[in-house]
């Protein structure tokens, strides 16, 4: 090896060592069993590198005898306010093991926010209006979101490494484990995952304003 060749080789090694850390991208494309986009599904992505996600203060309102929105995704440690914007009283409860709580009959916003300190799914109901159903998805994942109108969800600037992706929706029939995938981000090439439901979604509940069963 000539002196010049040796120098070139050193420069090559040095260049590789000082190259910026590669940031990865994962895109999920979720479809229903009939190949239509799977809209509004909750996506969580957990990895070895676990950046801290700051808790938030969220609002889940009650409008026209329905939770608005009917599903929110929050990091562990967050709080949620449950104002009642209807003219009638509501009485919100959860018997989900993740967070059991009750808000006695109220209008407006008389109660302090509810603290969600454990990961899991919390199903909300109203003890007066049975048709009202809502969900709080509490996650300890570093990355999370919901699929868009095209059934897609994308996360960028991911550190290289291995991740575990999972998908959930209140109307899906699949066991959650069947919609989980391990994925590795090895370089800055975007990784695209495709998930398709094996079973049709359940039909959504009827709006509470459509039918008021007195019984």
């Amino acid at each position: 090896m000539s002196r010049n060749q040796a120098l070139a080789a050193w420069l090559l090694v040095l260049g590789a060592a000082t190259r910026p850390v590669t940031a990865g991208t994962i895109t999920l494309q979720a479809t229903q069993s009939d190949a239509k986009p799977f809209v509004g599904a909750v996506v969580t992505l957990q990895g070895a590198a676990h950046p801290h996600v700051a808790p938030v203060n969220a609002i889940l309102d009650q409008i026209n005898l329905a939770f608005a929105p009917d599903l929110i995704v929050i990091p562990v440690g967050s709080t949620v306010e449950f104002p009642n914007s209807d003219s009638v009283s509501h009485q919100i409860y959860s018997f989900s093991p993740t967070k059991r709580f009750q808000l006695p009959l109220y209008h407006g916003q008389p109660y302090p926010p509810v603290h969600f300190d454990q990961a899991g799914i919390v199903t909300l109901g109203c003890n007066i209006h049975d048709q009202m159903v809502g969900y709080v998805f509490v996650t300890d994942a570093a990355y999370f979101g919901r699929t868009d109108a095209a059934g897609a969800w994308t996360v960028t600037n991911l550190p290289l490494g291995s991740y575990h992706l999972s998908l959930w929706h209140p109307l899906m029939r699949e066991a959650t484990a069947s919609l989980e995938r391990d994925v590795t981000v090895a370089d800055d090439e975007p990784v695209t995952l495709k998930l398709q439901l094996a079973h049709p979604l359940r039909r959504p509940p009827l709006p509470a304003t459509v039918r008021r069963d007195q019984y």
Partner: protein
Amino acid sequence: MKSLRTLLFLSLLCALAPGIGWCTDWELSADMRVVNSDGQPTLFDGGLGTLRFDRDDDGVQVGRLRAALNQPLGNVWDLKLDASYWGQDDAHPVGLTEAYLEYRPYPIDGWRARVRIGAFYPPVSLENTDSGWSSPYTLSSSALDSWIGEEIRTIGLETQLEWLGTRMGHDFDVGVTGGVFGWNQGAGVVLANNGFSLTDRQTALFGRVGQLGDEPLGGAEPFLQFDHREGVYGGLEVRYLDRVVLRVLHYDNRASPQLDEVSDQNYSQHTRFNSAGVRIEGDRGWTAIAQWLDGETTTAADDVPGGLSSWPFRAEYALLSKRFGRSTLSARYDRFVVDSIGADGYGAQSGHAWTAAYVFNTDAHWRFTLEWLQVVSSSFSREDFFGGPPLLTETQMQLAIRYALGSAIR
């Protein structure tokens, strides 16, 4: 007047202090009708017609004036009162159709209990789901539910236990219901004397059906109790994703038929029935309902000491409805029959009916309904009492204009 002041006070308090949850939810409504009918004198006028309005009622009539309130008593108790004036004679001009306390503790681990104490409807009807036990589909109830409104009420206690599967990722909710009641010893007297009719008028608690002294009914009072025997019922309800409701019930008032004293208006009818129904609601505003009821009412025979007369009865209907925005178009077919055993044919009746209705909700306050109803029926008693032909076709057209206001109106 005092109760009105109390209600206004509570409403004002709610307006000033929106966080208070035990505010009174109240509702007032006025339902006026323009009626055209070729019907025979009705059940309420001592006749054997099968409609609510007869040929003498053409013109403007009161459909229903109603006041209702729901008063929370603490967090898990409610007091519910529903009062109506129907423009047709009853024991009192204004009467309560339902009045009860409801206990509704929070669900625990997917199980929920409900207890009702007072006077209310047992879980039979799948069409009368609107406020005041009215139908969102038609003005007139089916023959089956009209009879429930005329004669059946739980005046006692009911418990319901429900497994809320849909709150836990399952497709079904399942509930069982049991009731113990009194003051329904006279239930069945209208059926045995007049048979089925199609009407939305509900008998007020401790009220009367028809005019005192009129034949054949004589102003019957279904809500009586003098035999000290409580009635019971038990039922099951299964809901599939809130789209399909299946409901069955067995009812038995366990009355002592031998205590019947017609001359004193102390009717004692041993009435028992099974009912079943299914309601299916689709995504595009379609609703289909079918209900079936089969039972028998028995009382002391008039002319045979120690003997009994019985009237086995059956009614069923199918309703199909389509919602288009603020409009609802519905059609219903009813069939009914009352047999007569040990009464020389007295009270026997059979018939069928077609109902078509168009409902337009202008907003939360105004509702307009146009309904056409035709009943074809045969009644033994028509010939027996009035010498008329037993077979009759009656047609009734109604235009209803309803205005409602209150805290529960939205």
